[in-house]
């Protein structure tokens, strides 16, 4: 372990081998998989936010050419189990039963109501259009503020409040009462969705002879889907195989069970034929998981010296009509209730949260899961408090960042380590904040409206079993790996983590190659196949390297010990005197090569008698890993944004965006940088214009990419990156911290602070706390509208 820092395959800016294939147009996404006998599925989706299905006439549709089957929600209800995201952590949570297809009542615009299976997608769509449904519209529930008081959309639950949460640290009320100053603001966060460029896709193929279901799908968590499809379709779990080939982005929206995908699997079982469904973009905009619609009343308390003494939040989180399965929707609230104020030392925290049902698309987890809310609330309140008390916002932060560890926040979270001191140091070394302030001031004197702002953020990564496992949900927080020495002396590594483009496979490959002293090219990776890889969590919550990489490292170290033992038998040396370097067993002192790994491997496979008669060479090793002694690993960072407001149009021009980041041991800085940049783009997009709008009748307005605006190249600046020094870890393992969500977490907060800095400089008293930061909102704040 001591030589881990040695230059070479670990810690290098290594490109991703698989991208060569993608660059040549040879991707293998789910919709690319050839299946000549596959039928195509299309869905009738509810045109109403909320409506009773009085009757469905399917006769005309069934008679159309090419139609093989048509199934309604009622047709499927007998053979496909319903699902409900209950959790033992909150047994009091109201969790309505959801069905693959709506039965009797549709509760969001886009909810699947019936499925047609036909010989081509076009003909399946023809048949969908020919289904006649008599609808009886019911009242829509769209406004988070009034959802709790609206008539229940699940009458049997008697309420639209799925869960009410309260927490307070000791003496919280007194801290706010005694505060020298309390600053209070209300934040409104917009509904967003992930928009992976490859829409959701599934190809299900059931063979009745062995009761075997093979599913190819674009998903982050194949093992989870193996468990769920088996359970909900009544199949033997070990005869359900899920493979996830190239996945064209996911960002959290491909980690759930979707009713339409379950219906496709059910159709394949019923028809005993392969059935394919590829969502088009309009369907994706109606049916993919959406996220982050919250209204948060938030307060910060300060003492007379400007020290932060408390934070308080009151959150209303508006979800769709059901809780996302199997994870539930608690993540966003929990992040707000545990990470508010996270970078800083303070005395007291109080919070309430209400998760309320509404008749909009399903809501759930999207990149960063609630972290951006906590970061925005925290950082905007500090800026407001600094402005209100005439203090320097940077000095205020520097004076109060947590510097001694472990640190227990009054929110109830223990941070083993955070790196804000290191991040502020790195920020100062990279940019002179006074220089930026001076440049902005100069521009203001020239009549331009400029502002700058920063946001400090925490990203909780590599989560342990303390929530899903404890809640009785079949969501693994562990991952596993098998490494095999092949007769050629090369390695095959089967890992349960999955690849959506982050470079997961490359990172794991680097670790295995490093542990076994091989060139990277001598390690072959297999991921995304439940039949060959160990059961594991897959991709969620920035865990692939910190958990999956650790498992692969541990497995490789076991195999390494066996290889050195075998080499010791051959060379008559103690294994401790041997090392593996560049495909050779070498003398660890002199580095001189003793035997090629390829020769040893061939011998072990074909002439194992060479190693004596008392030992069977063990040429595969496996290990599994999941965090035990801490709930997560925290990454830390600071983002800086400089923005100009066009006073005529209210448009924001991003002049500069910079990220300082710390993530423990970095396996591949190239991939880490690109993950962070991509995350920043999603955070900025969400703050600038991404918005799942609904009309007052609850009909989705953002039904295409012309109506849901995501950033294009021209909308974004270059994204500068600075890496901060890493404080030591004290837990087990390699000390890798996840990075997938860091960029998203702090980007919007930094931008918001820059915008409000600019607005404040115009002399007005208006700040903006509603996302997205549309030109209308900016012009209103400027007093123009």
């Amino acid at each position: 372990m001591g030589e881990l820092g040695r230059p070479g395959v670990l810690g290098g800016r290594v490109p991703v081998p698989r991208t060569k294939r993608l660059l040549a147009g040879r991707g293998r996404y789910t919709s690319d998989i050839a299946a000549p006998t596959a039928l195509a599925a299309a869905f009738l989706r509810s045109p109403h936010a909320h409506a009773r299905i009085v009757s469905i006439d399917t006769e005309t549709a069934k008679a159309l050419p090419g139609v093989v089957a048509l199934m309604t929600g009622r047709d499927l209800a007998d053979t496909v189990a319903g699902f409900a995201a209950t959790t033992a952590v909150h047994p009091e949570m109201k969790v309505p039963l959801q069905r693959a297809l709506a039965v009797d009542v549709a509760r969001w615009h886009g909810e699947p109501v019936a499925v047609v299976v036909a010989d081509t997608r076009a003909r399946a769509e023809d048949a969908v259009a020919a289904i006649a449904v008599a609808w009886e519209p019911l009242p829509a529930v769209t406004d988070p503020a009034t959802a709790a008081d609206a008539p229940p959309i699940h009458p049997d639950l008697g309420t639209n409040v799925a869960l009410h949460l309260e927490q307070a640290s000791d003496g919280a009320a007194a801290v706010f009462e005694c505060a020298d100053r309390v600053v209070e603001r209300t934040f409104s966060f917009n509904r967003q969705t992930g928009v992976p460029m490859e829409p959701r896709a599934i190809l299900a193929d059931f063979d009745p002879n062995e009761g075997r279901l093979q599913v190819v799908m674009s998903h982050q968590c194949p093992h989870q889907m193996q468990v769920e499809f088996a359970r909900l379709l009544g199949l033997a779990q070990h005869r359900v195989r899920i493979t996830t080939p190239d996945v064209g982005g996911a960002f959290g929206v491909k980690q759930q069970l979707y009713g339409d995908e379950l219906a496709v699997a059910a159709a394949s079982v019923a028809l005993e034929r392969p059935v394919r469904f590829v969502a088009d973009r309009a369907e994706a905009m109606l049916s993919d998981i959406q996220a982050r619609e919250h209204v948060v009343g938030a307060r910060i308390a300060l003492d007379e010296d400007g020290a932060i003494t408390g934070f308080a939040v009151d959150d209303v989180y508006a979800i769709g009509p059901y809780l996302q399965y199997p994870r539930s929707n608690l993540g966003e609230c929990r992040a707000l209730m545990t990470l508010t104020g996270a970078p800083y030392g303070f005395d007291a925290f109080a919070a309430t949260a209400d998760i309320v049902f509404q008749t909009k698309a399903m809501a759930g987890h999207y990149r960063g899961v609630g972290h951006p809310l906590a970061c925005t609330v925290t950082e905007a309140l500090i800026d407001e408090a600094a402005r209100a008390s005439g203090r320097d916002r940077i000095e205020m932060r520097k004076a109060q960042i947590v510097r001694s560890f472990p640190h227990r926040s009054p929110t109830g979270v223990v941070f083993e380590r955070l790196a804000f001191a290191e991040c502020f140091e790195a920020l100062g070394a990279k940019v002179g904040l006074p220089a930026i302030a001076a440049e902005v001031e100069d521009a203001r004197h020239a009549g331009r409206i400029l502002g700058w702002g920063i946001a400090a953020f925490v990203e909780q990564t590599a989560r342990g079993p303390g929530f899903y496992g404890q809640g009785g949900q079949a969501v693994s927080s562990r991952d596993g790996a098998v490494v095999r020495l092949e007769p050629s002396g090369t390695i095959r590594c089967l890992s349960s983590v999955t690849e959506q483009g982050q470079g997961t496979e490359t990172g794991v490959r680097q670790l295995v190659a490093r542990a076994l002293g091989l060139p990277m090219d001598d390690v072959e990776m297999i991921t995304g196949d439940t039949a060959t890889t160990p059961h594991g969590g897959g991709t969620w919550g920035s865990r692939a390297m910190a958990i999956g990489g650790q498992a692969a490292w541990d497995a490789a170290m076991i195999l390494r010990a066996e290889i050195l033992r075998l080499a010791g038998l051959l060379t008559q040396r103690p294994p401790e005197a041997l090392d593996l370097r560049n495909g050779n067993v070498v003398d660890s002192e002199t580095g001189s090569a003793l035997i090629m790994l390829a020769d040893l491997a061939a011998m072990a496979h074909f002439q194992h008698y060479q190693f004596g008669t008392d030992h069977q060479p063990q040429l595969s090793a496996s290990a599994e890993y999941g965090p035990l002694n801490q709930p997560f690993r925290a990454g830390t960072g600071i983002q800086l944004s400089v923005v100009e407001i066009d006073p005529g149009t209210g448009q924001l021009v991003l002049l500069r965006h910079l990220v300082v980041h710390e993530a423990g041991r970095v396996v591949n800085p190239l991939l880490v940088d690109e993950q962070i940049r991509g995350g920043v783009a999603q955070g900025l997009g969400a703050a600038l214009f991404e918005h799942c709008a609904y009309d007052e009748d609850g009909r989705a307005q953002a039904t295409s990419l012309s109506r849901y605006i995501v950033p294009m190249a021209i909308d974004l600046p270059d994204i500068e990156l600075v890496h901060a020094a890493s404080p030591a870890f004290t837990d087990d393992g390699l000390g890798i911290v996840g990075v997938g969500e860091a960029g998203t977490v702090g980007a919007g907060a930094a931008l918001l602070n820059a915008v409000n800095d600019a607005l404040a400089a115009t002399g007005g008293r208006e700040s903006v706390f509603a996302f997205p930061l549309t030109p209308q909102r900016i012009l209103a704040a400027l007093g123009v509208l």
Partner: protein
Amino acid sequence: MTSPEPFRTITCRVNGIARTEAVPVRMSLADFLRDVLGLTGTHLGCEEGQCGACTVVSDGATVRACLLLAVQADGMAIETIEGASDSGRLKDLQEAFYARSALQCGFCTSGILLTADAMLRDDRPVDRRAIREGLTGHICRCTGYHAIVDAIAETAEQRATCDG
């Protein structure tokens, strides 16, 4: 609706090979390339011309394969990412994208490469701003575009040096 699906026979050159196929008249060029010819490098991200993933080259100009019908390609020469890649004419761009990891999931990449190449073959100067403008009409959801701009700028420099 119960009448047979109308088909028409079209002939076009795809990646240099003459193809004659009977296609439903409502089939898009993208579906023709993918489902009839098996050229799955052309990706469908939105089917309404917003995302650019389905970009192909038609008679020398970049077009959205989702916005054309297959029957409109009758008589045309179409080049997809497979053809452009196999011919080697994107090699420098592909290498620059690879080295900088200017792609992650890769779903948008085929279209971006073809547009970038067309941009670089144009006579206009290619600075970072121009590259960002030239990429308007393509959505990448993974990278934040920075590395893509880097890769195209680097290729532009190399091509200018070679041409010079």
